[in-house]
């Protein structure tokens, strides 16, 4: 029963807010018996998706999807917080990659202006289906996010970069309401809690541990990070569940095609072309 309740709170069933005014009027004019049986195409689509378990956007980050029971719920605001190098940006890109490869259009509101298109493509994002919005201020970022939700984007990711300002709470409530009305999934990445009570779920990526390879007579190589992801808040469920995050360097093989200078003890694999060429190997 608890699980059922939890699911219903995350994946909201069709409500009057989702139906168009025409459907609401038509429904009001029908007898009670027929009223509950009338569905608009949008509601029907949503019910079918819910029944098929497709009511959420999986991000292909196992820990994230597990904590949210399937991925980003549509029609909800989910907040992901994390300090520098916690893997927050990697999760945001993974969510965009999963949505765009499934054929959905997605938008990234990038307040920190930190997207590298080449890295985004490497992460699996279909750039043709991604709209990149680069606002200069938080106020504009919030306005742009609302426009995108109202414009029908099924997934909108708002990354606040490293800024600690949180804006007015009313603005976040407004965003959450817009996401619900338009059945969009809204993922907000921030260094600290910003959305207050508007968020349906809050996850926190803890301090990460970097993993390096090398030492002694070979140079150090950054190979990835590991962090702990915790569910801080989720409507209808107890917080506290955790999961492990692990991200590998996109170009740990950044030394592919490398010109290794004589005397280096570095072992590298020949992989795809990379932009970096080590000038000297540091031991």
């Amino acid at each position, binding site marked *: 029963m608890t699980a059922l309740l939890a699911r219903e709170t995350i994946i909201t069933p069709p409500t009057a807010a989702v139906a168009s005014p025409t459907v609401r009027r038509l429904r009001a004019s029908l007898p009670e018996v027929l009223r509950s049986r009338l569905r608009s195409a949008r509601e029907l689509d949503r019910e079918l998706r819910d029944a098929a378990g497709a009511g959420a956007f999986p991000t292909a980050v196992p820990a994230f999807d597990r904590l949210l029971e399937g991925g980003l719920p549509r029609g909800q605001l989910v907040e992901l917080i994390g300090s*520098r190098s916690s893997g927050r940006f990697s999760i945001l890109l993974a969510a965009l*990659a999963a949505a765009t490869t499934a*054929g959905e259009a997605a938008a990234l509101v990038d307040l920190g202006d930190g997207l*590298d298109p080449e*890295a985004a493509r490497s992460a699996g994002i279909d750039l043709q289906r991604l709209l990149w*919005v680069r606002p200069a201020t938080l106020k504009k970022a919030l306005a742009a996010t609302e426009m995108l939700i109202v414009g029908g984007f099924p997934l909108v990711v708002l990354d606040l970069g490293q800024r600690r300002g949180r804006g007015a709470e009313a603005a976040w409530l407004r965003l959450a309401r817009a996401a619900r009305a338009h059945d969009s999934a809204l993922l907000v990445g921030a260094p600290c809690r910003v959305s207050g009570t508007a968020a349906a779920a809050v996850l926190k990526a803890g301090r990460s541990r*970097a993993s390096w390879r090398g030492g002694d007579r070979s140079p150090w190589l950054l190979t990835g990070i590991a962090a702990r992801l915790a569910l801080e808040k989720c409507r209808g469920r107890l917080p506290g569940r955790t999961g492990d995050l692990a991200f*590998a360097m996109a170009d740990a093989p950044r030394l592919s095609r490398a010109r290794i200078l004589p005397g280096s003890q570095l072992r590298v694999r020949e992989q795809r072309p990379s932009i970096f060429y080590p000038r000297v190997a*540091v031991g």
Partner: protein
Amino acid sequence: MRARIACLLLPLFPLAARLRSEPELAREALVAAEGNGGAARVVAATRLARAAGVRPGLTLIQARALCPKLVARQRDGDCERAAQEALLEVAEGFSPRVEDAGEGVAYLDVDGVERHYPGPSPELELGRCLMRAAEAAGMPARVGIASSKLAARVAASLPEPPVVVSAGEEASFLAPLPLHRLGPEVEIAGTLERWGVRSVGDFARLPPSRVASRLGRIGRELHAIARGIDPQPLIPREPPPLFHEGMSLEWPLVSLEPFLFVGRAALDRLCQRLESRGFACIRLELELRHEPDGHQSRSIDLPAPTRDAKTLLTLVRLDLEARPPGAPVAGFTFVAYPDRPREAQLSLYGPAALSPDKLATTLARLFALLGPDRVGSPRPVDGHRPERFALVDFAPPPPPEVRREPRAGRGLLAVRVLRPPVEIEVLTGENDPANLMPVEIRALTDGTTAKRPRVEGKVKVASGPWGLEEEWWADDPVGRDYWDIEIAGRGLYRIYRERATGAWYADGIYD
């Protein structure tokens, strides 16, 4: 079979055109005047003004003496041109063959169109539909249908429209009407009056050869019209490539808000007209006429065709705020360049496609909010510098027919690029330039870095240098030595040293 022609007539055209632009004046005693100062004369008056005794031809001073609360507006070429275009567009909604007769008159070929209006009197129903369409566009037009243009026009000017004249009965329809309905020239009208000819029927009964010998070619043509034979065929017009909407202002405007108030109404009408033709606006031009003279033209390109008046108004506002006109505005004209709105084939089983119309509106609003260089679809640029990128128009391909399962995540660590790079001070362990090893990072605190991420602290692990060279053949080649560093408790960064200057920068955070 004779052609069937409908005449769409907008009575008191100068006044009707003005009321279309300023509908709030509909309940006032309003006149349209022509001329300046004491020579200004009334050319059309509303029913309220006529009830007070105001007639066309009176001077404005005389009219004001009769009706002290009279509201007078000068004839406005922009309003009249826009109203005429709107009238023709209403007509084109019913027939592809439409003639522009000017001054609030449009003829349309309705031969066969009546079949779409079943009922006891299809042409009458067609006429009612035409009137309703014109009313919806803000123009109380009258309709007459006959087999000749003149008969249709006369029918349209009669009370209780629409008036339908059956085919072949034009002569009998015109016969009882007074002769001035044919609009004869003054000289011919005087001659006919001297002859004692009062009605169209009297004139039609005269022998054609005698009329031709006495009144010449013009008299012969008028006689043919009186007999129900209209020698002038319908000449269809080419639809104009652009849509105009504008007006002359009663008082020159110097501030933005009042201008946007009147501009909003004009844009609403423009978008309504675009929608009625199935078009959207891809480019909007604004022509401003200044007081006392001079004009200015500005153009706003849209990322995708849209017919959302609110979006267009926001773009106009931003353009005017960025480049104020610099002189009082006495009149304006919006010119819309039409384009077909984007269309998309929706799928039953695949992901929902974005509505092209909504997408165009969203993009235009984002452009207005942020500027065109901050919205688009990202693309990598040839080259090695990670901070570079390109933005292209966002035009997503159609979604797949069946929802695809998302690919398994690659679990890659992303780099958050710092644009522009943050300049830092780096303490190195070795003095040998070929073997530098960062050991401590210090933030440079000045005005430019105050709001940027602070990168500072003891370096725990450093990996590098990884050389990057680009455009060695150019005047300003790029040569950098990159390092990946971990600062204890403060994250992982990508920093580089410019070989040319020796300056250090942080250009990315592994996140």
